């Protein structure tokens, strides 16, 4: 347990020391907030900016937790992971430490935007909302940290990982209802959204932060807070279950891949092996 804590704390330190990256990570969310601020305007939604805000917060958590796997690749290519694997620490412990660090770091970024939200009209009536929101951010962060590490173990080097993760995060973000309401998507993309776990993360997080948990299912659908597939409505509880199942699958898959992976085969550059031959 102390090893998990130590690895967690180390990654947090790395995050804090890298202030430039933090600033850049936060520029985009605010940019989106500005550009897409009014898109959620409809007869049932009173404050579209807060809708947008909730979507942006959870997308930021999603994006940064997924990308945190690149720091794991860094640890492998820099050689530090070799120090870890000859120590009596199990790889499962290492993976756990990385997951919790990723979840924490991404939740912190989410909280920063959340705080900024109070200045653009986000209102909460009970402090419990903050606690639920943070718990949800950590939950979503953990899920996509698993997904990210899985992509990392498949990619095997940082360039491929960056390309692949970008190719995955962009559509997952834009077809989740975070920036563009699902009802506005063409039919084909609607179906993509239904199979996108981020869709459920967005609707669940929005329902919680906007304190709409007491609304009826019909009302949730009208306010773009629940997804209706045909005549079937995915309730917030179901959304939670879908996310948990998705997270569990990828946490298990990525941990298994991480335990088995041969670190010596992972290179900093795709070209490393080529240049050696030349």
């Amino acid at each position, binding site marked *: 347990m*102390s*090893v998990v804590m*130590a690895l967690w704390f*180390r990654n947090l*330190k*790395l995050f804090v*020391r890298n202030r430039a990256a933090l600033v850049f990570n936060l520029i985009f969310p605010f940019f989106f907030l500005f550009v897409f601020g009014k898109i959620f305007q409809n007869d049932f939604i009173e404050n579209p900016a807060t809708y947008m805000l909730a979507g942006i917060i959870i997308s930021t958590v999603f994006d940064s937790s997924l990308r945190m796997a690149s720091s794991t690749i860094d*640890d492998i290519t*820099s*050689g*530090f*992971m*070799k*120090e*870890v*694997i*000859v*120590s*009596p*620490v199990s790889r499962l412990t290492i993976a756990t430490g990385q997951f919790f660090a990723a979840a924490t770091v991404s939740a912190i970024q989410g909280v920063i935007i959340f705080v900024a939200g109070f200045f653009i009209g986000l209102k909460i009536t009970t402090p419990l909302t903050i606690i639920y929101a943070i718990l949800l951010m950590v939950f979503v962060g953990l899920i996509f940290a698993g997904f990210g590490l899985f992509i990392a173990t498949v990619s095997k080097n940082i360039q491929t990982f960056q390309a692949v993760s970008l190719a995955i995060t962009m559509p997952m973000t834009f077809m989740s209802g975070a920036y563009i309401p699902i009802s506005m998507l063409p039919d084909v993309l609607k179906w993509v959204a239904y199979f996108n776990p981020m869709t459920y993360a967005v609707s669940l997080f929005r329902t919680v932060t906007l304190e709409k948990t007491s609304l009826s299912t019909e009302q949730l659908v009208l306010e773009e807070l629940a997804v209706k597939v045909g005549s079937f409505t995915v309730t917030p509880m179901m959304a939670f279950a879908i996310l948990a199942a998705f997270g569990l699958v990828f946490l298990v898959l990525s941990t298994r891949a991480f335990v088995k992976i041969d670190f010596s085969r992972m290179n900093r550059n795709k070209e490393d092996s080529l240049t050696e031959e030349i």
Partner: protein
Amino acid sequence: MSQPIITVENFVKKYGGFTAVNNINFEVDEGHIFAFLGPNGAGKSTTISTLCTIFEKTEGRLTIDGKDVTTQKNDVRAAIGVVFQDSTLDKKMTVEENLKMHCVFYKVPKREVDERIQFVLKLVDLLEWRKKSVSSLSGGMKRRVEIARGLMHYPKVLFLDEPTTGLDPQTRAHVWEYVHKLQKEKNITIFLTTHYMDEAEICDKVAIIDHGKIIAHDTPFELKKQYTKDRAYITTLNPPALESLLNERGIRFIAKEKYHRIDVEDTAELLDVLAMCKEDIGDIEIRKGTLNDVFLELTGREIRETGEGA
């Protein structure tokens, strides 16, 4: 007589159809400095990696401090310290943070951590660098931090893979100073690979591996005695006299412009010859065989030609 702390019995390692290590046996005694030499691709790294529990063996039995490297991985890991050829430091962290993290991995009791950091940093002369970021250190200093870190958990065996490669002669000498200090003060067994033959000379035992087999394993002294001959370089004012004396006794020699070179088989006989023509002798130099000669004799190549480390 000390006990063996590392035992390797009938160790075989195959990669697909290729046999990297072919049935090797050796032991390392506790408290010894043991050098493992061999050209690139000879099976050196495979053997070390298997002993350090990174690779799985194909066959055989390898133990460290009585623990099996396959079935008791974590016990073995706790008993060894490893310094790899490539840096494995956490570069964005400070020296102290690196050492502390190591203590967490190896479950060093919290109240001892500070004292141990003090001890190992003093040993490698880096006390004043404790709070500095690893990335601000020079190559030699980084290597010293790695050695210090490898010692934090007081391992019984310290593996050093090419510990001095890429270091300047002065730092090399320092690293060796630390290694000796360690061996004396903590009775740590040191298992190292090197391609500097002068470094192997000062080890207690040397094993030479080539094509997956151990072709020699003994003290540097015995190896040199067995595989090399002393060479005498004699400058004489009267070459024909010396040559006839040598021919009389059937001692083979090579005559060069300025000296005669003789491979010494029997020292007493050579002394006889020299006594008979001592008025003519201008200069005499006896060169002892080196481990490099041993290596050349056994493998047919010089260790440096293999382009190792680089």
